[in-house]
């Protein structure tokens, strides 16, 4: 995972790509906890979500987990590759584990409760 990612308490990460663009996915810890990922449902490009709204579902063999928007934004791209092959999220050699890319002009306040990746990892211990 990119060390510059910011993480939520609900185990999403958000990474700033510049020019108001971001990518989001679930953290490496979340993937480890879920185990075999067998189904991913992502929103349509162009749809808009506010912070903390459910935008996706990731299912392991055992259960379905809702994935929350870390900051408000409008979806510009979804990762079709992981939708078609959800098990790629469990593949240590696979790099592109993001779920969505989105544009955001969210207020800085929306970032206030996000943790640096290092703090997130510390919190887990």
């Amino acid at each position: 995972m990119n060390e510059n990612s910011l993480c939520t308490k609900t185990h999403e990460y958000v990474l700033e790509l510049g020019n108001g663009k971001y990518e989001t996915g679930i953290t490496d810890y979340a993937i480890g906890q879920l185990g075999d990922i067998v189904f991913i449902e992502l929103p349509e490009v162009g749809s808009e979500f506010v912070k903390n709204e459910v935008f996706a579902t990731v299912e392991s063999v055992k259960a379905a987990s809702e994935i929350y928007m870390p900051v408000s934004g409008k979806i510009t791209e979804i990762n079709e590759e992981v939708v078609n092959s959800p098990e790629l999220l469990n593949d240590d050699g696979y790099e592109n584990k993001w779920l969505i890319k989105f544009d955001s002009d969210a207020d800085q306040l929306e970032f206030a409760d996000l943790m640096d990746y290092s703090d997130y990892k510390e919190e887990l211990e």
Partner: protein
Amino acid sequence: MVKQTFLHDEHVKLGAKMVDFAGWHMPVQYTSIIDEHKIVRESVGLFDVSHMGEVIYKGKDVITFLNKMVPQSIDKLTDGKAVYCQLPNKEGGLIDDLIIYRLNAEKFLIVHNASRVDEDINWMSLNIGDLDVEIVNESHNYSMIAVQGPKACDYIKNLGISDLPPFFSIKEDLLFGIDLWVSRTGYTGEDGVELIMKNKDAVKIWRNLLSHSEDFIVKPIGLGARDTLRLEACLHLYGNDLDENTTPVEAGLAWSIPKNKTEAYNGKEVIENQLKNGIKKKLVGLKMVDRGIARHGYGVFYNGEQIGVVSSGSVSPTRGDNIALAYIKNLDNLTVGSTIQILIRDKYCNAEIIKKPFVQKRNKDSK
């Protein structure tokens, strides 16, 4: 306080992910549910099932007693034979499902579900009346290891038990020099055995089973794969597919109920009436046609009307699709080949009713 089996520390050492299940701290997976599932379909898997309840029923009247507790004919069992049974309440709803073993004419072993053993024993006790029956809960004295898979019996024979009991039978034997019970049963649809041993011997047997596997691929398997394996084989899970509001006839278990049993048993009136006149709800097998995984509790729809609810659902690692069991209204036009809908989150997803079991069982003709 969450209970631990005598193999708990072994699971932790093997790197298992532990979860609370029916009041027990149990391994849900060691590496990957899907990989573990495939091991059991291809080779040999070991399961710690020590959370299951082992209860001895003994006394001069034990056959009479058990015969009035279950729809099955306990008087037909011979020494060392076992039968899959249900434990109905007076309305025919199921308190539990059980495996009943006849050890001898005055001594039976019953294996109960971990989550139900206390309720079961209470219900059994309330029904003894004047009969000469004593119930001894041995659950905390015994451990149980299931050895399952197409190579499981070869593996056990290789370890020295040359003469395995036939399907649904039990015998005493020695393994690694330790006295134990060997039962030809399981919960995966594969051939294999379940070993019942004194708690103090559990770690030694578990370690030996894992380390003597030179010519066999033998791996520990968690409860996650146990669930997907039993679902593919359409073996019911109490709490999901069976409960006190569901009769064995509704659950598709009529095959296990003798038609000519003369003795009275709890729920007999309801069960026999359903066998003769039919049922209002039935358990069907489904495969998802649209993308999505049906889960326990999701609604089942037909022509926009809710006709039932999913009792179990998951991926099928063997088939490579998504499968489910659901209770639906017993309508004549809803049969194998029919398309119905499952409400998954806010979408109606098509599913097709298909034949059960989802994966053919390979233990029926075990020798």
